[in-house]
């Protein structure tokens, strides 16, 4: 692997080649996604019944998440031990076993290899050697933990327990979001032509939010003049961004944004129900989005609730999967309100459609200058710490510090 020269030890300069190098991508799969991190796999509500399974991705490894007959949750690699074929091709289903269509090798709900057609051949001819041990050829099994009805997995025996990995900040945020039994309302998927880390950065970048997403400012949904801030876990790998609605005045916002040619003259919606915020959490936050290293985000924006999963698809592409949900005891009106508010997010989101374009243009033009670097200095350089303001991208440096640690590419005297 090419040696990484960090211009500064506080990650305020990130070399562009980290987003574009095939060797780096390969190392990330091994050391980050298959390394000592936890990734979000799915929601427990997606596999409520014994036998339910869902296929997903951990990094670029295909994974089956399965609820067994005893209701325990298992996860294993969705790749036949025989010839490497995808075993389960459906997105979800219910099954006692998983059978690869190629040669009909079959696996249990725990991923054990249970059946090999013609293992002893036909009429005493062919088949496998007698010494072939089925138990050595199961599907590779992940460690699984379920926290607040969200299913997480890791390939690493060295990964710390999930609750420690999440830390108090993430645990509290997830516990608030998952305060009651949920029901999944549906999925949105989006294929973005950019490196997955550009999205990890985007999630941690509160500086861009009200500048790129003009809808937020124009309709007073999220403005840097509102109360809010960013908080990280102890290791600075995860991030929480939050804001409190109606904590600033329109006049204050007009003054702050007017100087930057941003249209903050509040437009009125003909159908303002779209923006209605029905407080349902104790903290009064209208926006609260946490990002978990490396592959997930947990979101509430007004009453729109979702988890997002990042699936890297090579250096130049990732797929973003949004799973929207409400609570099982939502009234019809509340369900309709959540479904309406979904208009704000996802690939057609009034406040999120810009992210794809921002990532794609950053990816496209940084590719040809791998030797150059980005500048990440909002909120100042040096120490990586929480801020009670929003014009900051310090959490990006937090992301890179943990990334560099896992990849074994920290500079001398690295800030963590």
């Amino acid at each position, binding site marked *: 692997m090419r040696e990484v020269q960090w211009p500064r030890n506080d990650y305020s300069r990130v070399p562009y080649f980290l987003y574009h190098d095939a060797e780096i991508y390969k190392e990330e799969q091994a050391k980050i996604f298959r390394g000592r991190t936890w990734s979000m796999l799915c929601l427990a509500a997606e596999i409520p019944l014994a036998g339910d399974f869902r296929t997903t991705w951990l990094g670029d490894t295909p994974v089956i998440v399965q609820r067994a007959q005893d209701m325990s949750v298992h996860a294993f690699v969705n790749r036949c031990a025989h010839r490497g074929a995808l075993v389960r091709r459906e*997105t979800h289903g219910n099954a006692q076993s998983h059978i690869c269509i190629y040669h009909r090798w079959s696996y249990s709900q725990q991923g054990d290899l249970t059946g090999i057609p013609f293992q002893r051949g036909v009429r005493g001819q062919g088949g496998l050697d007698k010494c072939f041990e089925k138990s050595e050829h199961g599907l590779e099994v992940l460690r699984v933990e379920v926290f607040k009805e969200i299913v997480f997995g890791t390939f690493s025996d060295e990964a710390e327990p999930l609750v420690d990995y999440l830390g108090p900040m993430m645990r509290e945020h997830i516990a608030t979001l998952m305060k009651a039994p949920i029901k*999944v*309302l*549906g*999925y*949105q*998927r*989006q*294929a*973005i*032509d950019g490196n997955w880390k550009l999205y990890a950065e985007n999630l941690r970048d509160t500086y861009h939010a009200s500048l*790129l997403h*003009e*809808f937020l400012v*124009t*309709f007073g949904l999220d403005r840097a003049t509102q109360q809010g801030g960013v908080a990280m876990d102890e290791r600075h790998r995860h991030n929480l961004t939050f804001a409190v609605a109606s904590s600033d005045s329109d006049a204050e916002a007009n003054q702050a944004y007017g100087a930057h040619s941003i*249209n903050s003259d509040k*437009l009125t*919606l*003909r*159908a303002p129900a*779209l923006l209605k915020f029905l407080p349902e959490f104790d903290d009064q936050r209208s926006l609260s989005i946490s990002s978990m290293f490396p592959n997930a985000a947990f979101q509430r924006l007004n009453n729109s609730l979702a988890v997002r999963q990042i699936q890297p698809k090579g250096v130049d592409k990732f*797929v973003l999967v949004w799973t*929207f949900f409400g609570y099982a005891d939502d009234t019809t009106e509340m*369900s309709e309100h959540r*479904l*309406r508010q*979904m*208009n704000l997010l*996802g*690939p*057609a989101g*009034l406040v999120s*459609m*810009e*992210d*794809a*374009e*921002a990532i*794609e243009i950053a990816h496209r033009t940084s590719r040809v200058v791998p030797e150059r670097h980005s500048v990440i200095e909002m909120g100042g350089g040096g120490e990586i710490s929480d801020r009670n303001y929003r014009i900051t991208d310090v959490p990006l440096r937090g992301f890179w510090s943990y990334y560099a640690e896992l990849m074994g590419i920290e500079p001398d005297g690295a800030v963590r």
Partner: protein
Amino acid sequence: MITAKQRFAVYDLYANYASTADACRFDDWLNLFAPICSYRIISRENYAAGMPLCLMLCESRDMLIDRIVSLQRANEYAIHVDRHMISGIRVTQAQGDLLSVEANFLVGQTNSEGELSMYVMGSYHDTVQISDEQAFFVDKKVIVDNGCIPHAISTPI
């Protein structure tokens, strides 16, 4: 049974839908909808699973107008030209002045440097109102087969 004139009005409606959307003539596009109307884009994945979540949901003409105003005033998106190919328009049911109409669509997208890519493909499942041999959308469901949307959705499909 619908008349030939009504059938032509339905065909014209879809032709005008494609041409106004592709030319970003959104005011004219809006006028293809009845005063009381709804419009939604939903992935085949959710539609087939009976899940209600849409990619875009406009439950009223006002919400459609808000969408268009936001596109014109607030949103940033890739500079592009869409081209709708609509085919297989078929009236599946007629009841009074309301018709159930289905059609297939394919949208190609060309970027600012003239490169073309396949964007979305799917089917329309619509309710169309026929009045005075003019047709309007009362309810338009855009079911996108490739629910894993390339880039993003900005302009209507």
